[in-house]
């Protein structure tokens, strides 16, 4: 498949924490996306307290985007125990919500595949929770392990699709690397991300990964395997979204 020289352009933001008090904050910038980006990714914490009213505020605000929107939920979206209802409400407005799934979009510049999952805590190599001891500790650890499994399912779904995506991207809320956590106290890194997410991204040979959650972290990093990662938490990027252009690997055919 051949593609144009320009890469696929991904707009991304996370941690918008919408509620009624923020209505109207993003809509003007979202209305400018067409022509600037091919897709908008939202990296979790769509709401502040995980209520349906806040989910409606998010959905109405972000449905104004004139390019497709793909989102994952974050820990704030789980706070009221309404995560499934929130995902369903948002999906009804045409926004794709991923948790252990993949989605494909055909753009003028090529085909993009997005594997999405919230992710979870766990920590990073050498400073990581172990699946050992009390039931509660094992449950915490297992959820971190399972969260990486969900991201793997997302990539597996992308890899079953024909034709294959030209660009494959991981979308999570929790961080897959410590390289975008600089600025956050190292003591809380185990609550900000999970090395297994990074392993999945490396094994999938993804082209790019975006996450949120680390409000005091840094924007640019890589997985241990060298795949570019961007922390797009809004307090980090300090704009309505960032736009990243991912080169498309051109092959004859």
């Amino acid at each position, binding site marked *: 498949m051949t593609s144009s020289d320009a*890469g696929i*352009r991904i707009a991304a933001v996370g941690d918008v*924490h919408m509620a009624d*008090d*923020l209505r109207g*904050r*993003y809509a003007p*910038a979202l209305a*400018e996306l067409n022509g*600037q*980006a091919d897709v908008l990714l939202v990296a979790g914490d769509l709401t*502040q*307290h995980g209520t349906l009213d806040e989910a409606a505020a998010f959905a109405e605000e972000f449905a104004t985007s004139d390019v497709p929107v793909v989102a994952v939920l974050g820990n*704030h979206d789980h*706070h009221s125990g309404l995560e499934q209802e929130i995902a369903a409400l948002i999906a009804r407005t045409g926004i794709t919500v991923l948790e252990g799934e993949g989605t494909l979009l055909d753009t003028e510049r090529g085909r993009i595949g997005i594997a999405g999952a919230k992710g979870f805590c766990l920590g990073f190599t050498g400073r990581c929770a172990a699946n050992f001891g009390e039931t509660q500790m094992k449950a915490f650890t297992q959820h971190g392990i399972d969260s990486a499994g969900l991201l793997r399912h997302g990539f597996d779904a992308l890899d079953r699709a024909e034709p294959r995506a030209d660009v494959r991207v991981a979308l999570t809320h929790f961080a897959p690397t410590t390289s975008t956590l600089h600025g956050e106290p190292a003591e809380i890194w185990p609550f900000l991300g999970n090395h297994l997410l990074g392993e999945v991204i490396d094994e999938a040979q993804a*082209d*790019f990964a975006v996450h949120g959650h680390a*409000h*005091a972290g840094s924007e640019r990093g*890589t997985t241990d395997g*060298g*795949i*570019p990662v*961007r922390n797009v938490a*809004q*307090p980090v*990027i*300090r*704009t*309505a*979204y*960032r*736009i*990243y*252009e*991912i*080169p498309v690997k051109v092959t004859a055919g």
Partner: protein
Amino acid sequence: MNTEHTNQRVEQAIANDARTNELGVRVECVEGRVLVEGEVASAERRDAVLTVVREHVPEAEIVDHLQLSDAAEPPRHAEVVERE
């Protein structure tokens, strides 16, 4: 109560209270004053944080160092991302 314990108790309240659920706010009690630092998304959220702080340390003078998030402007340019 030990000052460190008070700081921790108020920070936990700001994280757990349904009016706030703010995880990035830090407080420090110093000689009858309580410094409140961090970033929140709106003036309403700042007022809610200060209300929770006041309820937990009513005797202290509150020093508000909270910052409001920047307005969400669109970015000026795209970044080309390639593997190193």
